[in-house]
């Protein structure tokens, strides 16, 4: 196993064992922190497909995170208020079942990614960054002014949604569920990166002209990559909303987009476990530095600056050495 493979295994093991230890010692807060790290990692794994493999610098992934969150909020709030979501063509009362919520969150965010991708991929480079950022802001303002679902105040869901066979209100069980989803998605991302599609998407990043010359359409590859990426981040949004039992426009804010991107950079762009390491480090910093100083964002900013300027390849790059030679 390569150094990076060992590191990955160690990270995955640590993320799984720390909450178990906390459960044994009776520290539910640590479990919640680990759950938060796992969900944020999932969101960043999604972005890493567009960013790491496809080279699409999307500064609007909070859009999909927020759509996933609101999918959960809207479905669950209708059940909570005993108001059917719609009565025609059939009666639908909303849902408090996680699998259905996840499915709808994934579909809704994939659809949004398709529409945004169709427009944003007409351009490239710095235009793409600005346009994804602008569409993210559009959803942010829309969620603020949409008073049916809480507007600026957001929506509280009092009971965490259910998953067949689990008591999701038990922190360790909910963590296990999020951890399992993260592992499955990581496995999927690994398979995707090595699949013909993933290789073609990577090639479209490195040399669109050559990809075109062998008869593939780089824009279409990028669009599919962007949709898959948005769908995964949307799933993370639904889980994040369930973790907090609360959704608000903050999930759509551009700072959220920036933070999801920060996880990837801290960890390492294009590395399978970059997002996991980055999200883990971010949550730890947020907890420890946040305890020490009200102004911990200064330190985060300085750390980020140092990583960008001096440690290209992120923490995984520092610990495991350079990536594959041909990349």
């Amino acid at each position, binding site marked *: 196993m390569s150094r990076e493979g060992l590191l990955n295994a160690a990270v995955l093991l640590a993320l799984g064992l720390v909450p178990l230890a906390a459960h044994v010692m009776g520290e539910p807060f640590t479990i919640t922190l680990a759950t938060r790290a796992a969900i944020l990692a999932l969101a960043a794994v999604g972005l890493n497909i567009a960013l790491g493999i496809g080279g699409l610098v999307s500064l609007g992934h909070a859009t999909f995170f927020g759509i996933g969150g609101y999918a959960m909020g809207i479905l669950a709030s209708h059940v909570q208020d005993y108001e059917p979501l719609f009565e025609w063509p059939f009666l639908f009362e909303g849902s408090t079942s996680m699998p259905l919520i996840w499915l709808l969150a994934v579909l809704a965010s994939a659809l949004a990614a398709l529409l945004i991708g169709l427009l944003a991929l007409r351009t490239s480079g710095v235009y793409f*960054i600005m346009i994804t950022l602008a569409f993210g802001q559009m959803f942010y303002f829309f969620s603020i002014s*949409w008073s049916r679902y809480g507007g600026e105040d957001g929506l509280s869901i009092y009971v965490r949604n259910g998953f067949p066979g689990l008591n999701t209100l038990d922190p360790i069980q909910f963590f296990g569920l999020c951890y399992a989803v993260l592992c499955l998605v990581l496995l999927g991302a690994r398979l995707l990166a090595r699949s013909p599609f993933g290789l073609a998407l990577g090639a479209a990043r490195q040399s669109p002209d050559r990809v075109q010359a062998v008869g593939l359409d780089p824009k279409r590859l990028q669009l599919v990559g962007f949709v898959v990426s948005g769908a995964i981040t949307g799933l993370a949004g639904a889980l994040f909303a369930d973790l907090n039992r609360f959704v608000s426009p903050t999930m759509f804010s551009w700072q959220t987009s920036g933070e999801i991107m920060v996880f990837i950079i801290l960890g390492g762009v294009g590395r399978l476990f970059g997002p996991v390491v980055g999200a883990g480090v971010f949550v730890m910093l947020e907890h420890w530095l946040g305890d020490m100083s009200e102004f911990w964002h200064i330190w985060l*900013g300085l750390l*980020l600056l140092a990583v960008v300027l001096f440690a290209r390849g992120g923490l995984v790059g520092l610990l495991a050495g350079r990536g594959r030679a041909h990349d």
Partner: protein
Amino acid sequence: MTPILIAEQVLNGLQSGVMLFLMAAGLTLIFGVMGLINLAHGSLYMVGAFAAAATAVATGSFLLALVAALAAAAAAGALVERLVIRRLYDRDHLDQVLATFALILIFSEGTRWIFGSFPLYLDIPQALSGPVTLPGGIQYPLYRLFLIGMGLVVAALLFWLIACTRLGIRIRAGENDREMIAALGVDIARLYTLVFALGAALAGLAGALVGAIQSVQVGMGEPVLILAFVVIVIGGIGSIEGALVGALLVGLTDTLGGIFLPQLLALFMEPAAATQTGAALASMAIYVLMAAVLVWRPTGLFGARA
């Protein structure tokens, strides 16, 4: 919906448009000359506003406050360019986005540390307060008229600077071919610092001017920054004319949409639903405008390069 109301709203739209232009002009210059996407431009807007508010409290002079805003933002811009931005010119856009995102965090938290979390207030000077009556019987705040005038004057100065001065020639040459003008003996590093400081000063001026009609607080720069991005995407990156046209389009669409969309919907919807739907749609209007421009011309109205 009277003609007077419409005229007032058009003036409001113009006012927000020219202020957006001051932000967008700096961003588009910096991108055009150095190829850099600068997310921290909103922080320089905030630096200008805070410098103006602090100076106004200390000296009581609005003019000095404006001078302080220009100086503080230009100095902050030059400093940041020397320390950080300079290392980013030959990096890819991802590194630029992240490094300037880090700068936002540092600027915002630093300002919160120095000035606290509560908003500051910058008073409109006595000579510019109160309404004036315009031809046609329109009552309009003098200060907002002053903002429109100030924005147009600065825009004219900027166009003059770019078109007629030696610095402008160098800036335009730098946009076209940086190796060539370096070979001709222009100190590129100094030119870049100068352009960055100029863009920063424009942002700081906008922050100070707008700060007097809104509150001066941490995070005030980012919403404006994102609007300025929309302006640049519409106008075309690197084009000052595009920034002006885009800024006015965005300012007018945003202001008029917020007022007239609810009223338009009220013609065929219940009043309460119309207000709600109208507000929601109005908040999306400028992004729909941006999408429409993208479908029509992916490089913006005045953008030449692909």
